[in-house]
């Protein structure tokens, strides 16, 4: 009886696990491994084999699961891109969420290779960066359709590496971020493709860490749909340019809400004279820029046609220019408005053909609206082409047209300004309007004055509507 009981019990205990295993294998449990639980996928509720359960979603791929360490975000990004790009049989695009990385000790060190180096074709990527300071070892080369988004220009910072600041090696490269894959890949003179469209950089900061000759964002060849927004550029050293729009960045922009501090150049728009005529490097402009300049370098170099600079503030020293136009290449048909300077030599400096260098360049058709000197004793506008310097703290309008020929030589430039001032003795010719005849006092030779109220415009018994300034000779009615 006992034996029988044991036999029954033994049989049950023997078969129970098998029954249990069979049941577990046959029931459509959340068999995650057989549904979608790919590494780094976001967890959402879905339907797996007829049962509502958690599944992975490709909406975002979390980079923390792809790293070789808990702090190196770029190796993780490179691993994801290598996994999912088209050459790996991947998709046409991806959102990589790196915001989950640790907030301290972050690095970007992919062995000297840009994390996007495995990307080919038009594979689109959006990279969400974490808040914190990221030690940057190599240039980030952003290909077509790549978007780099931080947590804010005061929150996410790439700091260029030096061994003196705790990195294992110094930063390699001349640019912190390239829009496009670098000049060598897009120089039309060498027959390379000129365009890497849709490169976007937003909400982050670049700290050049005082490295000499290191540039911040360089756009050699990212064109349509490419832009920069809410970016801080800090600690740039001599020889470095914070924002450099070079040669083939046509139709890119706007470059908006940018701040810069350092002793290099704040920004430059440059169009090489060796470019094909169809490549003008005309952008959608820089809109909203603050340059805090140290050292002796000028802040902004404008050396290309068809650009707009808008809402710009520059602080610096008495040997620096705010915006220097036409010193490196031709610059025509540009629009500049709402520019303020503090402590500068000139807020805006228009180069003469050889006043800023030995090589002559042309500046024409320049429209300037709203210039202010908010501090210091510098000038608002120095125009070497017309030998005019406007010292007034404010200038409403200054429009420089084109050279006017007289016989075989130039006799001047078409120009209009609302400024009645000049420095030191030569004043700008302008056009004044008043309801009474002009009063005595200094006036710019060649200025006009329209007296508009007929009942008040009589003087010495004769009515003059139009008056001309003779310089030291004062105003004279024009019959």
């Amino acid at each position, binding site marked *: 009886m006992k034996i029988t009981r044991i036999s029954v019990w*033994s049989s049950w*205990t023997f078969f*129970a*696990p098998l029954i*249990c*295993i069979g049941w*577990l294998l046959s029931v459509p449990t959340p068999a*995650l*491994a057989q549904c979608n639980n790919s*590494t780094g*996928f976001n*967890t959402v509720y879905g339907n797996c084999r007829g049962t509502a359960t*958690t599944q*992975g979603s490709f909406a975002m791929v*979390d980079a923390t*699961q792809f790293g070789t360490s808990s702090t190196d975000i770029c190796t993780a990004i490179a691993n994801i891109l290598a996994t999912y790009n088209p050459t790996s049989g991947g998709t046409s695009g991806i959102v990589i*969420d*790196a915001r*989950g990385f640790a907030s301290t000790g972050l690095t970007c060190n992919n062995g000297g290779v840009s994390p996007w180096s495995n990307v080919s074709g038009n594979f689109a990527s959006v990279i969400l960066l974490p*808040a*914190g300071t990221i030690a940057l070892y190599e240039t980030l080369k952003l290909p077509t359709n790549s978007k780099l988004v931080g947590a*804010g220009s*005061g*929150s996410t910072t790439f700091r260029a590496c030096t061994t003196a600041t705790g990195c294992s090696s110094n930063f390699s490269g001349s640019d912190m971020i390239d829009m496009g894959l670098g000049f060598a890949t897009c120089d039309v003179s060498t027959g390379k493709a000129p365009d890497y469209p849709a490169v976007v950089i937003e909400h982050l900061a670049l700290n050049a860490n005082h490295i000499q000759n290191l540039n911040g964002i360089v756009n050699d060849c990212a064109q349509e749909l490419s832009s920069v927004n*809410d970016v801080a550029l800090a600690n740039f050293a001599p020889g470095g340019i914070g924002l450099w729009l070079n040669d083939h960045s046509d139709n890119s922009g706007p470059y908006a*809400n940018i701040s810069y501090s350092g002793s290099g150049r704040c920004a430059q728009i440059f169009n090489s004279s060796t470019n094909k005529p169809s490549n003008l490097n005309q952008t959608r402009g820089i809109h*909203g820029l603050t340059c805090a300049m140290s050292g002796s370098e000028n802040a902004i170099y404008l050396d290309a046609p068809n650009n707009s600079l808008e*809402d710009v*503030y520059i602080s610096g020293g008495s040997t620096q220019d705010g915006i220097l136009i036409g010193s490196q290449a031709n610059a025509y048909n540009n629009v500049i*408005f*709402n520019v*303020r300077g503090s402590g500068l030599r000139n807020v805006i400096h228009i180069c003469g053909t050889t006043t800023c260098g030995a090589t002559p360049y042309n500046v024409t058709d320049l429209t300037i*609206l*709203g210039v*202010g000197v*908010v501090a210091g004793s510098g000038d608002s506008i120095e125009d070497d082409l017309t030998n005019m310097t406007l010292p007034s*703290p*404010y200038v*409403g309008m200054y429009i420089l047209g084109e050279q006017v020929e007289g016989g075989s030589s130039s006799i001047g430039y078409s120009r209009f*300004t*609302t400024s009645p*001032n000049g420095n030191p003795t030569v004043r700008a010719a*302008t*056009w*004044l*309007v*008043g*309801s*009474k005849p*002009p009063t005595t*006092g200094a*006036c710019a030779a060649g200025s006009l*004055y329209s*007296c*508009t*109220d*007929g009942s008040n415009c009589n003087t010495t018994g004769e*009515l003059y*509507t*139009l008056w001309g300034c003779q310089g030291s000779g004062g105003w004279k009615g024009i019959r």
Partner: protein
Amino acid sequence: MKGTTTSALRCMVFAITGAIVGLFTMPPTPAVAQVQGNNAIYSSTGSIVPSSAFIDASQFIGTGTDHSGNVCGAIYGILSGHFPSSFSATIGAVVDARGISGSTALTCPSGTTPWSNGSTTVSAPSTILLPAGTISTLSTWILPANTHLIGEGDGIPSGSSTPGTTIQAGSGFSGSTVIQFGSAVGTGITVENLTLDGQGQSINGITNEFAQNASYVNHISLYRIHGTGLLIEDSANNSGPYSNITFNAGFTPPSTTVCAQIIGVTDGTHGIHGLICATETTSYPNAAVLLDSSNNSIEDVRVEGFSDGILVGEYGNAQSNVLANISGDTPNGTTSVNVIHIANVGNTVTDLSIVGVSNVGGFGTITIKDDPTSTSLPDASVGLYALGEQANGGHSRFTTSPNAATWVSGTTAPTSSCPASASGSLYSNSSGSGGNLWVCPATTGGGAWKNIR
């Protein structure tokens, strides 16, 4: 012996059974400790692990320890570290509150905002994603430096349209403004994609007195704000741009209601770009935009339902400003209507460039009224009006309007008379015959052009 064997077998079988059952019934335990509100992702082993990419604030809504009954309290609990989360007070994080819903959860009690609880405040950087719906508040939201407040969309409520996210000043609102950019000079404060509803109270919408670089506003609607919709003042240097702003005062706003004002910002701003100012009444407030500061740009503006569209220099000096693409659409009511009005009340207004002004408000409205030069332009549109500075008893000025002194070019000598308003105009005849330069004489009532010889 047999009994021993049987017992051993039984133990082994139970152990195997237990292990198998335990294996299959065990949840996919995270490799690391779970943190409340963190995003959940799959690890390389297929288990679910937390990611601090963002913190879901909805997990802190409720009662009891580490919970709050409302969105403000939940966010405050995270930012202040009172609630257990992965939030770093030094570095900050993304706080996703989009999962919070219901009128109770979206009502913030008096004294509570995402950054304050009574007199206690937090200043950690963060990106806050607000939910759709109406969040009622009774206190000013003072955003600390490096704070990004993002809703799900803005708009003016109508029968067919409801904005995505609205922050509504409840009855008895205790502050003077719904949102304030900082309490000391700082940077990096942004507000995007939401509506502020003042419910007809005489309060301001957004006030920026302190925030500078990287501080801006984008896609904001200001509804029933009967103070100043957007007030930029004092130390808000280099802030902006303030973009894509829709202001609607609603019905019966007081005459002092203002859409936007820039006043006393010493170094200037990055401007207001894209602004609609409207009311739903025929009793117009005095002015839509007050420009009482230097070195600013205001562009792409449409004004409807105000006596003055942009009033320059009424309450402070205003020099070196640029206005571009300004459109007025206020019908002539009981008072004069001006799209742009340059005041002459003792403050200094110089170096003002105006490009592209239009007026579709009908008869009797003025496109540009320039008090310093006693000029009123009734033109439907004006291409350029640049007012310079005072000199020799006049003002340097240039406009393309033919209703003021301008410069006309033609290919024949002028034969018709010119109006009195155009006295002082020049005419260049490029034909080479019949006189090259002419002037519109300053005779009363205008007259025939006179050739300058």
